[in-house]
């Protein structure tokens, strides 16, 4: 697609429920990233996918968080047993990978605003 698409744009959920967030990257971008941004704060890295390589999960805050990506397409971020501290905007970005000569700048989606009540 023309840009990175995220859905839903807003999600309100009750504490303890599971949620699934979706990211559709730009076609041809092999790298995909998830970040979290709490209100008034910077971006916190969660997970990174590159092609068929094992994902870098080093930023996932707990085992309640997981993410999947099939090949170079859609990714889903799942948060189980949501807590109030999970409330944030979840941002997805995609880019080309580091293989010489290209602009590897990230393109971000509009984010999913998650509110846990």
């Amino acid at each position, binding site marked *: 697609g023309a840009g990175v698409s995220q859905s839903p744009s807003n999600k309100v959920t009750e504490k303890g429920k599971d949620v699934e967030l979706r990211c559709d990257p730009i076609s041809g971008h092999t790298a995909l*990233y998830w970040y979290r941004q709490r209100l008034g*704060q*910077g971006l916190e890295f969660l997970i990174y996918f590159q092609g068929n390589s094992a994902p870098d999960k080093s930023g996932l805050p707990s085992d309640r968080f997981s993410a999947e990506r099939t090949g170079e397409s859609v990714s889903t971020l799942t948060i189980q047993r949501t807590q109030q501290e999970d409330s944030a905007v979840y941002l997805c970005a995609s880019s080309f990978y*580091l293989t010489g000569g290209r602009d590897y700048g990230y393109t971000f989606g*509009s984010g999913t605003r998650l509110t846990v009540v």
Partner: protein
Amino acid sequence: GIQVEQSPPDLILQEGANSTLRCNFSDSVNNLQWFHQNPWGQLINLFYIPSGTKQNGRLSATTVATERYSLLYISSSQTTDSGVYFCAVQYNTNAGKSTFGDGTTLTVKP
């Protein structure tokens, strides 16, 4: 991990003024990006600039990788330039993730 410091944290300008935002980083980096987050939360990539100088209209950026800093210049600022400017660095060739600074919040007054 790598430390990314941005300054100043807040900046208030009158429309038409120029400004310089700074990003310092604690280790050698493979790439560096500047982003603008508008008041609606959308992040826009301004520059991918691991080294050297780039210009795009009223905006330009310079990265001096050997001295571990980058500068973003905004000339003839407009109210639409308001928002948060983030610097993001990647320091490991085999790890695509970037570490973001805490940002500079710019307010341009008419």
